[in-house]
């Protein structure tokens, strides 16, 4: 059924000791049930909570072909974590997702179906259309998120409904080219991925996802995130 395709899941982790076993268990469950060829690449940035030790235990359980560990010594950020991960990816497709359980692996088979349907270069999960949605957001967070999304749509006309999400499937070369062209960090980096994808002429498909805010660990959305986002949006508005 796999048809020669292999999927490399990139899991960047920083202090995800509690979440990592669960997300890997879920990934193996859903990808295994779909008879897909896959590997999970864990990129841990020297988490002080011992995420890497847990990852090693999981590797013993699931095997070195399924769980690949590519740790780095210190916290160097998400963008470079993806670059680092891609270098070691052996699949022709790459899936990026958060390890904090806000992205449920059950959507991956839907991403793959969508990709095949339209032969897309990129399939992006979206919380903002169709059956998509969120759990655990209060009114304030919803207002901020919807406003930010609306402004982005008006100013950048990106042709994708969820710019700040980070649950996506790419053709490997597409992700490589896109990430190399990106300069931003954080939420803006996810946004820039879509903008650069359009500049390269890549096609984008979308799948509604249900986003459950992290159960374990700290979630952050403060004034500095909002300001950083506004700056990034204006940067992309003025330069692309």
């Amino acid at each position, binding site marked *: 059924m796999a048809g020669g395709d292999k999927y490399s899941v990139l899991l960047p982790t920083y202090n995800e000791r509690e979440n990592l076993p669960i997300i890997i*268990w879920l990934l193996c469950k859903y990808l295994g049930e779909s008879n897909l060829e896959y590997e999970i690449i864990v990129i841990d940035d020297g988490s002080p909570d011992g995420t890497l030790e847990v990852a090693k235990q*999981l590797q013993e359980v699931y095997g070195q072909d399924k769980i690949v560990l590519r740790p780095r010594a210190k916290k160097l950020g998400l963008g470079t974590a993806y670059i680092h991960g891609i270098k070691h990816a052996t699949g022709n497709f790459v899936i990026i997702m958060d390890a904090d359980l806000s992205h449920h692996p059950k959507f991956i088979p839907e991403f793959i179906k969508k990709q095949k349907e339209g032969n897309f270069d990129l399939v992006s999960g979206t919380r903002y259309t169709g059956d998509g949605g969120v759990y655990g957001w209060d009114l304030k967070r919803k207002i901020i998120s919807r406003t930010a999304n609306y402004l982005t749509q008006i*100013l950048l006309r990106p042709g994708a409904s969820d710019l700040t999400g980070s649950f996506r499937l790419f053709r490997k070369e597409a992700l490589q080219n896109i990430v190399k062209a990106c300069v931003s960090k954080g939420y803006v980096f996810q946004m820039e991925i879509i903008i650069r994808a359009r500049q390269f002429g890549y096609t984008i498909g979308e799948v509604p996802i249900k986003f*459950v805010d992290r159960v374990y660990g700290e979630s952050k959305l403060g004034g500095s995130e909002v300001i950083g986002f506004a700056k990034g949006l204006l940067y992309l508005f003025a330069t692309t």
Partner: protein
Amino acid sequence: MELEVEGLRMVVMQCHILVYYNYYQRDTKGVVLNNYLNHLITTTTNMTKLMEWLTGAILFLGPWTAIVTTTIHNEFTVMHYQEILLLPFLLVAVFAVVSIAIIAFRVYSFNDCHQEAKELQEQILQAKADLAKRGIKLD
């Protein structure tokens, strides 16, 4: 003459359809139109979004300033001077109101995935039990 115009229209339409099918047919339904217009604008002008907005503003505010300062005037502009004077402010106000209405509606209709959260909680327990059997202890 009329035939020629009609012919030209057909050619333009054909081109649009060609671009559309080669480039955006593979896109998701909801964003097709957006992409298509976007594609036309960005490929024909190759401007940054900022430049597009500035161009739009100049194209609109140029003639407006000329009318407001009566550099250009005719029967129509004299008769409707008040309305023309207020037009940009009116447009901004309408845009703001419509935007706020859209955002309010989207906040209100944002799906709350209670079912999903419950399912995840159950799966976390399953995962923990299964992993414990395989020798991975979680607290």
